[in-house]
C-alpha cells in the first residue's frame, strides 16, 4: 500500500535537486569551480566506474570503519543502557551523565584520538563509535526504565530468571525506541567517519572528497559527493530492511 510512496518521494526529491543543479550551472549563476555541471560530473562518474576498484576500495574502507564503530558501540550501548535503565538507582546516577556527554562536541577529542591511535582507521573508528554510543545508550536506558513493571513481575511469578526477564520481556519491549536510537547513531557514525577521513587520512570516501577538492577537480569532487549520498541511502535502506525483519521476528 504505502510501499510505492517512499520510492516516489525519493525520486521526486532527486529530480528537484537535479533540475536546480542544471539550472544553476547552465545559466552560469554559479561558477563551475564551485559547482560542476551535470555532464562533467557524469563524465567523472563514468571515468571512476571504468576502474571499479577506485570506487569500491574507498567505499569498503568507509563501510568497514562505520560497521565496526556502529556495531561495537551499539552492542555496548544496549548492554549498558539496559543495566542502567533497569535500576532506578543507576538511572539517577548515570542518565544525566549520558545526556551531558551526548551534548558535548565529541569531535574535539579527535586530535587526542589521532595522537593515541594514529591517523589510520583506528582513530576514525573510535570517533565514530563515540558518536554512535550515546544516542543508543540514552534511548535504551530510557526505554528500559519505562518497561511496564507488571510485565516483569508477571514473568518473575512464572519463574523467569533475571536473564530470562531481560531476554523475553525487557528486550522485546524496548525494540522500537532502541531502533530509533540506532538509526540516529548509524547516521552520526557514518558522517563522523567520513568527516574524519576528510580531515586526515589516506583512504575512504572522505579522503577522496578531500583529495579531489585540494586538486581543484570539481567534477570528481561532485562525483564523490554523489557516491557518498548513494552510500548513505543504501546504508539506510539496508538498516530499515534489517530492523523490519527484526521487528517481525519479535512480534509473532
Amino acid at each position, binding site marked *: 500500500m504505502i510501499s510505492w510512496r517512499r520510492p516516489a518521494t525519493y525520486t521526486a526529491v532527486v529530480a528537484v535537486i537535479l533540475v536546480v543543479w542544471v539550472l544553476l550551472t547552465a545559466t552560469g549563476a554559479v561558477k563551475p569551480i564551485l559547482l560542476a555541471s551535470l555532464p562533467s560530473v557524469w563524465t567523472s562518474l563514468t571515468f571512476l566506474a571504468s576502474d571499479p576498484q577506485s570506487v569500491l576500495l574507498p567505499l569498503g574502507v568507509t563501510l568497514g570503519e562505520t560497521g565496526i564503530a556502529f556495531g561495537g558501540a551499539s552492542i555496548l550501548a544496549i548492554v549498558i543502557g539496559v543495566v542502567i535503565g533497569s535500576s532506578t538507582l543507576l538511572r539517577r546516577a548515570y542518565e544525566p551523565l549520558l545526556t551531558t556527554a551526548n551534548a558535548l562536541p565529541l569531535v574535539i577529542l579527535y586530535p587526542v584520538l589521532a595522537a593515541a591511535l594514529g591517523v589510520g582507521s583506528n582513530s576514525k573508528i573510535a570517533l565514530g563509535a563515540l558518536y554512535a554510543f550515546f544516542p543508543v545508550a540514552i534511548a535504551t536506558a530510557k526505554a528500559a526504565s519505562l518497561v*511496564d513493571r*507488571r*510485565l516483569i*513481575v*508477571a*514473568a*518473575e*511469578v*512464572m*519463574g*523467569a*530468571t533475571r536473564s*530470562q526477564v531481560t531476554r*523475553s*520481556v525487557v528486550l*522485546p*519491549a524496548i525494540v522500537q525506541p532502541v531502533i530509533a536510537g540506532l538509526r540516529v547513531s548509524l547516521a552520526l557514525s557514518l558522517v563522523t567517519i567520513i568527516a574524519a577521513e576528510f580531515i586526515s587520512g589516506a583512504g575512504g570516501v572522505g579522503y577522496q572528497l578531500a583529495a579531489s577538492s585540494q586538486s581543484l577537480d570539481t567534477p570528481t569532487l561532485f562525483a564523490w559527493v554523489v557516491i557518498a549520498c548513494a552510500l548513505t541511502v543504501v546504508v539506510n535502506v539496508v538498516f530499515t530492511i534489517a530492523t523490519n525483519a527484526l521487528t517481525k521476528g*519479535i*512480534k*509473532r
Partner: protein
Amino acid sequence: MSAAAAPAAGSPPLRDAVEPVISVTDVSLSYGPVLAAHDLTFDVRPGEFVSLIGPSGCGKSTALRAIGGLLAPQSGAVIVNGSPVTGPRPSEISFVFQDLALYPWRSARRNVEIALQFAGVSSRERRTRAMDALAAVGLGDVGDRFPSQLSGGMQQRVAIARALVSDAKILLLDEPFAALDEQTRLKLGGQLLTLLEEHGKTVVFVTHSLSEAAYLSDRIVVMGPRPATIKDTITVPLARPRHPSSMREAEFHSLTDQLTGLLYDDANE
C-alpha cells in the same frame, strides 16, 4: 499444626482434619508507612475454592500478592504447602493478575507458552499444551491473534489459560472477569469451575461481585476496608456441581443477603 485451624465457626469437622495448602495467620501488610491489611487469618484446603470479597480498594489484591510471594508480610505468616512464602513459587502457584499482564508483542498462543518456556518445557510440547489450554477456555481458533486484537473478555481468558497451563496446583485469580457483564461473568465462572475440578486446582479468587462469589465458592472471606480486615468467613451451603439453577435456590438468596448485610455495614462505618 497450623494455628489457622481456628477460624470460621461453621466449618464441618471433616474439613478441619485436612491440612490446609494455604494458611494465612495474623498477617499484616503495608506499602511503606501505609498499613494495607491488618491481622488477616484464613486458610484454604486442597481443592477448595475460596473467594476474597470486599469493596474496591479494601486490600484484596494486596492479600493475594502476599500469598503469591510478591509482598512480604510485616507480621504474621503465610504458609503454602507447609513452608513460609518468601517469594514467587512458579511450580506451586500460578497467578492471574487484575490487569492481566499479557505481552503485547506475543500472540495469544505464545503468551500462554511463556509460562512453560520459563519452566523449561521443550518448544514442541509448549506449543501443544498452549493450544490445548486455549481450546479449554474456548479460544482454540484465535491463538495467532495478538492481545490488542482480542476483546477484554478474550484477553482475560488468555490470562486464565496461561495460569491453567502450568503444573502449579494453586491458582490465584484477581478479578479475572472484571471487564465482563454479569451474565457472561457467571457463564465463564461456571466453565472455569469445571476446568478447575478437572485439573484439581486449589483456588483463591478475588472479586467484588456478591453473586459471583456465592455461585463459585466453597467459602467466602468477607473483607472490610482500610486497612483490610476480615469481617467474617462464610461457608457456602450450595451443593456441587454448581449449575445456573443454583442461583434460584433459597440458600443462594439468603447467602447473598447475608453478604450484602456484611458489606453494607462497611459502607455505614
